């Protein structure tokens, strides 16, 4: 109070932190134009019959009707659901386990950390190609095991339509868990050493300390990790292109690939827009309840 009295008149709210506000104008403009503007444009044109070039000839929900009547799209959605569900759980589980192991003050921790993080430095295309070779039944894992003498061994996920999405999942997890491990490790390092000491004094077993004390304390870290994994799931495209091109048949198609193929290869912009709008809608459906739980309601300390 006395500070304000000394300063005399209370400054205009809009002009407070003027520099910071000016500095953030480009970011706000980008967000409005690129995110809101382009999204709106896409949604509007998804109700038209645009082919190679966008045109405003509205056809109602025709594009959506066709979309949900297309087998390829339904397969894509199903694949994304499986990939997303498994990738979310496994990446978190593997990432956290590796981080916890590294956090037990092992020798050569730096070396292990580097090795485990390396896959993340590779692009999805390279990862996809490498795993395409490893999983190739003629010179990959299957052949190696057969050369050892187990001649009936079969492991060809990329050539089996029933499980092909899990072949892609393997590559996705191999690539993604390193990053999650590093984030988790940073989180674990942020836990006060005294908490460990207190737990030890109370005689709580290590695993139980992790489950009931450490993990709840790392909630913000888990949220960050979840957001990173989720965004990776929705946009999965290059892995599929590099590993299977959507094959065998259409068994490993994903929504992002459908959007690309319709927009560019089939010269049917509106159909691609309709598909990408559906992707956006599904993200929003998941995001809004979560954001409400996380940020809404009463502010947490």
């Amino acid at each position: 109070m006395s500070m304000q009295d000394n300063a005399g008149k209370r400054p205009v709210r809009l002009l407070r932190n003027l520099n910071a506000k000016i500095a953030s104008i480009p970011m706000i403009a980008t967000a409005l134009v690129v995110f809101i503007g382009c999204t709106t444009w896409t949604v509007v044109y998804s109700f038209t019959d645009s082919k190679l070039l966008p045109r405003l000839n509205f056809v109602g929900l025709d594009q959506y009707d066709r979309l949900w009547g297309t087998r390829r799209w339904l397969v894509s959605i199903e694949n994304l659901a499986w990939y997303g569900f498994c990738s979310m759980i496994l990446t978190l589980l593997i990432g956290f386990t590796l981080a916890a192991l590294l956090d037990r003050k092992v020798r050569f921790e730096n070396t292990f950390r580097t090795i485990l993080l390396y896959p993340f430095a590779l692009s999805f295309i390279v990862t996809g190609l490498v795993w395409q070779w490893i999983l190739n039944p003629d010179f990959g894992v299957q052949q190696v095991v057969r050369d050892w003498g187990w001649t009936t061994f079969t492991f060809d996920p990329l050539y089996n339509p029933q499980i092909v999405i899990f072949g892609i999942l393997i590559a996705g997890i191999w690539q993604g868990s390193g990053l999650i491990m590093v984030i988790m490790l940073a989180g674990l390092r942020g836990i006060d050493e005294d908490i460990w000491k207190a737990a030890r004094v109370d005689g709580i077993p290590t695993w139980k300390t992790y489950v009931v004390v450490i993990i709840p304390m790392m909630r913000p870290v888990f949220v960050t990790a979840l957001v990173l994994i989720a965004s990776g799931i929705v946009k999965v495209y290059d892995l599929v292109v590099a590993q299977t091109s959507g094959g065998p048949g259409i068994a490993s198609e994903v929504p992002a690939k459908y959007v690309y193929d319709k927009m560019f290869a089939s010269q049917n912009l509106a159909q691609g827009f309709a598909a990408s709008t559906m992707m956006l809608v599904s993200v929003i459906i998941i995001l809004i309840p979560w954001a409400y739980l996380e940020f809404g309601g009463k502010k947490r300390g």
Partner: protein
Amino acid sequence: MKTLSKLLATGAFLAAGAVHATELEVTHWWTSGGEAAAVAEFAKAFDASGNTWVDGAIAGSGGTARPIIISRILGGDPMGATQLNHGRQAEELVEAGLMLDLTDIATEGDWANVVNPTSLLDACTLDGKIYCVPVNIHSWQWIWLSNKAFADAGVDTPANWSEFVAAAPALEAAGKVPLAMGQQPWQSNGAFGVIAIAIGGQDLWNKINIDKDADAAAGPEMAKVFEAAVVARQMASKSRVQDWNQATNMVITGEAGGQIMGDWAQGEFQIAGQTAGNEYECLPGLGVNEVISTGGDAFYFPKNDDPAITAAQKELAKLMISQEVQVAFNLKKGSLPVRGDIDLSAANDCMQKGLQILADGNVMLSGDEVLSADTQGQIEDLMVEFWNDPSYSAADAQAAYAAIIADAD
């Protein structure tokens, strides 16, 4: 290091020397051995005219390259010239006024009379103006057979589709793949198209693809086609290669009995030093219905503000359709020339067969000419699923096919 700097110096020298000539970037997707040799003929002829051909080959296939080409044109970064297939792929680009009008040089070169069949020029024409140069005729309707594979299996090389089907068990017993097939979507789609024209005949094909008659697509004639395709799927079930030229290579090495593929496969046999009638045989229309489609490649010239580039574009257009370049290019490419007035006695047996069919007028339009890219894409999706899923029955596939034809535009 020394070699590197030498190379750089040479490069700089070459670049400096080329200042006066107009550079024209030409994009295309001809990257396999035979194709690259053919496109080099264009480059040679264009360079000889005092201009510079900047090669913009895009690896992959048309499916990969076309989106790149189209987005460059739409994005305001047009190349000097670009390959596209005849037909409706560039329809909207032309309508939007993005392509150079070539009517003046077409009149000058009397294209209306030299181009044979005339449907090729029709596919380049919009509202009486000509927007592209057809450079070759490619037909899909061929099966390539390996004499070695059949000799190894102890059977005669078949002369038509039903003999081929009958020989399949012998091939399998000899450890061969009866039918080689790549996994790219356009290959699945193309092979089906060939089977459709061979088994169903041209009237049926026209009814479905030109008149978009969904009843015909669902009818009993088409059911036979789908049953034949199921047999072909069975024969190709052990083929695991991706690219078409890998599949052709299986035929070249005698690992596979045959491959249904367009006449561009011929260039691969040529590069491998094989000749028709000795190491391999070719059957147009699967030996049943000898017709060939007259689709093919054409070059489009995106509009450019620079008059020097426009002049070079017209120069290149003239060259591409000239008699000498047509002969040189098509011999390497294994495709048929677009002019009826040139001598191709140097062509091999298979090309002679094609030329004869062309001269007899047994020609049909190509899928690219009659169906929109969107419909083609839908059929492609269906075919990819059908060829790869052994449990996808002929009847189900036919029903899905008829539904697509009913919605086609």
